[in-house]
């Protein structure tokens, strides 16, 4: 098998999938509504500033939608976590008492206005900067972290035609922008002039760098199979249904499933979520690199973290869960962006669920998981995807062999490595002092 035949096969697979996607595209009014609205608004303006307005509207939309999304994620997280632990969660903050109204409408709205109360609190709090801090970097760190985590949204296809920037190398862009947030964490830790902040920042960096590897490696199979880096094309490659009800999402293939699991774990670690929230383990370290931050700057870091989580979930949806595609053909009348948001919410709820369930890992367990388990498994999974690509043309009886072998490639190493690894995750039996 030479490389050239491989690549030619890849190209035929890609063209076939894009052609299939082009065939089915029901464009209802709801589907087009957001874009039409934007075009209408842009056309109100004079021609020279239209391109600027076009981009500004996009940016503002992303900011508004995901800003609100962030706000409600926090309240949803608190309420869900509470429910997972048999508590009620915040349910007190309601409408402010307006003196102009003759009556007081007393309803707490199930505490839904909590994020706004939190926001007001964060903004009005005192902004403390340590005297010895590197003032400029201390200020820049939260700005950079929010900016870069927002930039990752630019390449996510939110709907059939809604994609802020259509890039050929979108995945590369996503990871490049994501990588820059690590710099901000370092800056935050270093500029605080607090040695615990610095240590925590280095620890956070170690974690982020080790988990960036499985994260990217878990995406490579997708690139291998779809032979493109464009998120739009990847979503299109997942269109269609077998027997009319089995969607062609990558998560429903053995390699895709394994990749999705690796992606989920790495995404959890990459967005500093429990059980990988060592960098800011509130109950152990003070707040890691955020120790010296307060008020709005702290809120910015917090926001960036949720943006990162949302962006990674969006990427996961795009890559493995079929993006904006409907799961069943007759559900296609629901606009694509709603499907995307629905899947996104599912992912985030899953993340919250995991947070409410699992305990925090030790740092040695964390790194061991990445280097001894996820990375080898992800590498194997790449080979698995290559096998999948090679066997695209197999006839029907051999398809079962294909599935079996592909599943075996991930399941057997998973069990074997898991067995070797689970010993190190057992409750420890030694005492600290000899």
């Amino acid at each position, binding site marked *: 098998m030479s490389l050239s035949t491989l690549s030619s096969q890849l190209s035929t697979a890609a063209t076939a999938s894009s052609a299939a996607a082009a065939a089915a595209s029901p464009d209802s009014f709801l589907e087009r509504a957001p874009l039409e609205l934007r075009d209408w608004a842009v056309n109100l303006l004079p021609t020279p500033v239209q391109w600027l307005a076009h981009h500004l509207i996009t940016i503002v939309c992303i900011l508004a939608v995901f800003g609100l999304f962030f706000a409600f994620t926090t309240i949803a997280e608190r309420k869900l976590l509470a*429910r997972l632990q*048999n508590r009620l969660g915040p349910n007190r903050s309601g409408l402010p008492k307006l003196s102009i109204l003759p009556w007081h409408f007393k309803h707490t709205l199930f505490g839904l206005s909590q994020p706004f109360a939190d926001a007001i609190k964060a903004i009005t709090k005192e902004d403390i900067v340590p005297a010895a801090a590197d003032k400029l970097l201390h200020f820049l760190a939260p700005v950079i972290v929010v900016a870069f985590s927002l930039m990752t949204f630019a390449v996510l296809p939110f709907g059939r035609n809604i994609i802020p920037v259509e890039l050929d190398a979108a995945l590369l862009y996503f990871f490049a922008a994501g990588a820059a947030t690590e710099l901000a964490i370092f800056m935050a830790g270093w500029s605080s002039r607090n040695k615990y902040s610095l240590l925590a920042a280095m620890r956070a960096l170690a974690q982020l760098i080790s988990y960036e590897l499985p994260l990217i490696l878990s995406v490579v199979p997708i690139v291998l199979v779809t032979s493109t880096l464009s998120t739009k094309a990847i979503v299109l490659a997942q269109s269609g249904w077998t027997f009319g009800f089995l969607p062609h999402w990558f998560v429903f293939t053995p390699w895709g499933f394994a990749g999705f699991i690796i992606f989920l774990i790495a995404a959890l670690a990459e967005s500093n979520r429990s059980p990988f929230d060592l960098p800011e383990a509130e109950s152990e370290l003070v707040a890691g690199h955020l120790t010296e931050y307060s008020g709005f700057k702290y809120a910015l870091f917090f926001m960036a973290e949720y943006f990162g989580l949302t962006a990674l979930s969006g990427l996961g949806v795009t890559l493995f869960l079929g993006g904006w595609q409907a799961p069943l053909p007759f559900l296609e009348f629901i606009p694509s962006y709603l499907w995307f948001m629905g899947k996104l919410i599912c992912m985030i709820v899953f993340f919250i669920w995991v947070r409410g369930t699992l305990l925090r890992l030790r740092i040695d367990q964390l790194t061991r998981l990445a280097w001894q388990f996820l990375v080898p498994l992800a590498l194997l999974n790449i080979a698995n995807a290559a096998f999948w690509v090679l066997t695209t043309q197999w006839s029907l009886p051999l398809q079962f062999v294909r599935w079996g072998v592909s599943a075996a490639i991930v399941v057997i190493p998973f069990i074997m490595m898991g067995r070797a690894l689970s010993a190190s995750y057992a409750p420890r039996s030694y005492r600290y002092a000899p």
Partner: protein
Amino acid sequence: MLGSGIINGLIVTAKNFVGSYHDPKRMVTVEYPEQKTVLPENYRNFPFLITENATDPMGTLRCVACQICEKECPPQCIIIEKSKDKKPDANGKMQIYPAIFGIDTSVCMSCQICVEVCPFDAIKMDKVFEIAATNRFEGLFLTREQLAKPNSYYHEIHPVEAAEVDERLTAERKAAEEKAKAAAAAKAAAAAAKPAVPVTVAGGSLPGDRPGQMLGLQSANNSADPGLSRASATPPGPGSAPPATKTPTPEA
């Protein structure tokens, strides 16, 4: 297999999630201002003063301003100023009373030492905890008027302990009465021999001269009646009513 534990855990929390909506028994949250948990009987936080007369709290404080608690208080949050004059106490005996009695609850550490050292059972621990105030120097500094609470309130919050205290006090009073009677009889006998001299009695029989109380010992050895001492050793149940004679009649 690696990961099965994670899935089990996820199932547990999912059960919690679903259960929290249809099974109110699961919920651990108490919605505080509306609902309150019942505090355990031995709960304590800040001291208060006991008065014998429910209608006029200020009238009959048990406190005689001996200032032992003020001296013993580790954070020194008690301030007492003796009165110049005397007033009759619950037993009708003339006593010095605290002109000023203040406790700074922002300093108090709820150690209960003041209660243990008080020879008159005059200061006890309270159960209030909602003492939030907007002013640290006025709102949290409790004066004599705020501190004084009737004995019935004490029975309400610590029934067992209050019953014991009352029992002991009654016994002591009885002993004092008998002693006084004996003294009166002796005096009568003496009067028969000598011309009578009028003497006021009862002061020396107050419970302050019992060292055992400081160490937290029960006062059974002091009570003359063995039946009463047995009753004090076995505390009455929570539902039992406080002794009817809260204010025993002064001696004749």
